[in-house]
């Protein structure tokens, strides 16, 4: 049995593209879409996979990362899925890819205008853990009623002395919608303002949203407690990069650890070009 190009039938892709276009037209707004059951489980990137399927053309070069790495098992699985169902070329090089599907990271190499970054999103609603009801949160977005979020951030500061959100740090898009950037570390938040088109797909929650190129994206903060995209205060132990997000790796029984780039392509290319310290 053979499947259509990129698995989904054309009608379904069209439905998804319409949702994407609506998302692009209203940056940061969560567009409901009739998410399909995919042959991988919900929560494993079905939203991203559907968005990628709707965007891919036979000429595209596809890259998949999970936690910044191309060789994590689920990234391998998704890349294989599209190699098999779309026959597209794949790459691990950020600069060579035209469509990049990601989970939890934005590549370190700056993206450019002819690239699409597709995010896998588990819970698209930034207000969900403040208000569990979808009927309520949609109303709050409609009325631009974000007081609850500001109170939460304020309470963080009152309790911990800083905003205690380290990933999935909420942003405000074009001064209108508060948006969940997916569980990327807040270190990546400044990269959300990009020349590339960024699309967010939440399969189980049936939502698509988008950041068109050069959209204004502000991480929520207070004047006296400005946003701080912190990271581990180390250079990468392999390539020496000071500017990349680092994974902490336990290397021996005594709990010895080292810090290495989470973006494997960035790290490898720095080492290849001899930039390693």
């Amino acid at each position, binding site marked *: 049995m053979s*499947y259509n190009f990129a698995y989904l*039938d054309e009608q379904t892709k069209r439905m998804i593209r319409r949702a994407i276009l609506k998302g692009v037209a209203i940056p940061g707004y969560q567009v*409901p*879409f*009739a*998410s*399909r*059951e*995919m042959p991988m*489980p*919900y*929560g*494993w990137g*079905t939203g991203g996979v559907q968005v990628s399927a709707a965007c891919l053309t036979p000429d595209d070069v596809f890259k998949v990362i*999970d*936690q910044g*790495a191309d*060789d*994590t*098992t*689920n*990234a*391998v*699985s998704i890349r*294989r899925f599209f190699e098999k169902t779309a026959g597209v070329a794949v790459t691990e090089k950020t600069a060579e890819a035209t469509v990049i599907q990601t*989970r*939890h*990271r934005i590549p370190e190499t700056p993206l450019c205008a002819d690239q699409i970054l597709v995010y896998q999103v588990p819970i698209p609603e930034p207000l969900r853990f403040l208000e569990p*009801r*979808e*009927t309520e949160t949609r109303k709050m977005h409609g009325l631009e009623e974000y007081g609850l979020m500001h109170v939460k951030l304020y309470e963080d500061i009152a309790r*911990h*002395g*800083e905003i*205690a959100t*380290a*990933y*999935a740090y909420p942003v405000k898009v074009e001064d209108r919608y508060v948006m969940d950037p997916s*569980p*990327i*570390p807040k*270190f990546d938040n400044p990269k959300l303002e990009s020349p590339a088109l960024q699309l967010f797909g939440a399969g*189980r929650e*049936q*939502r698509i949203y988008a950041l068109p190129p050069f959209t204004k994206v502000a991480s929520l903060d207070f004047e006296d407690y400005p946003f701080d995209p*912190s*990271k*581990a205060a180390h250079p990468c*132990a*392999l390539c020496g990069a000071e500017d990349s*997000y*680092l*994974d*902490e*790796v336990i*290397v021996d029984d005594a709990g010895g650890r*080292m810090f*290495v780039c*989470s973006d*494997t392509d960035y790290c490898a290319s720095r080492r290849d070009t001899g930039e390693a310290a």
Partner: protein
Amino acid sequence: MYVAVKGGERAIDAAHEWLADERRGATDVAELSIPQIREQLRLAVNRVMAEGSLYDPDLAALAIKQARGDMIEAIFLIRAYRTTLPRFGVSAPIDTGAMRCDRRISATFKDLPGGQILGPTFDYTHRLLDFALMAEEGAGATPAVAEAAGAARAAGGAEATALPHVAEYLDREGLLQPEPEDNTPPRDLTREPLDFPADRPLKLQALARGDEGFVLSMAYSTQRGYARNHPFVGELRIGRVAVSMDIPELGFAIDLGEITVSECETVNQFTGSKTEPPKFTRGYGLVFGQSERKAISMALVDRALRWEELGEDDVGAPAQDAEFVLSHSDNVQATGFLEHIKLPHYVDFQSELELIRRLRAEAMMASTGPQEAAE
């Protein structure tokens, strides 16, 4: 020396091979055939068809075999297959009044036209292990047993003619809340995003494909007082109904085939309101195959979800909360999201780790002075 975690592709291939080997089990035991599963594990097949929302006993049996008996995995396989199927039309509503019943019982009337038909039920079996079934072959399949079953089938449901719905008798007396007639085509949960407020057809759709365990527990919670609605099984019927479809080119409807369904209609107490005298109300459940636990559960939850429509109080019970019930009833969604926490979360965990270390360092600095906090 740290070696980057490589080899994901090889690990996946090896895992798949191992899985295939485990699925087959010991090779000195004969392999299960699809007809064996279809015929002898029929209730499992029914559940996969019901929650997979696809009526195909052979494919459901295949899914059970491939999933090694993991029901939710089998349901998932069927769903993922179903979503690729083209839709070439919509059948006419099935007529359960014309059902050829294998089983039909009412808990509200001792006897009624058509009678009570017990059918193939576990209800009055003693749950004692039947060690005779452990014998390799032949158990239960003696000619005498087969003959007796055949006679029961002939005397009971199989050849029985259409039986009236029990509810009709109450309806005639005006004791039952009338159901509004509505011929709007129902929304399709599998083709449109779930949207609230959900109307009753959408709720019933979600319940019909919802996880049996979840729907059962929700129903049970209403029986234990969380939005109690005093249900009686007005009627439970299981049997075969024809599926027909209007063919525009022909200008008339033709029967496409027959499916087995379980239908449950509950009769529930209703105290009436200031404007209305007391009446009975109903809950409704309809499920593919013989799945009566699910059908009854569905009817109870359906009834609990109707509180608003019937002017009852919201007592804050989970089973009354349509958004809660509908958002969490789907086991394929639930399983996927639950199990995704097995996937790597190094990046988010790392950011939390740094945050916690920083907060602790600051807290120690504040409480014990800078020397100790500096480690």
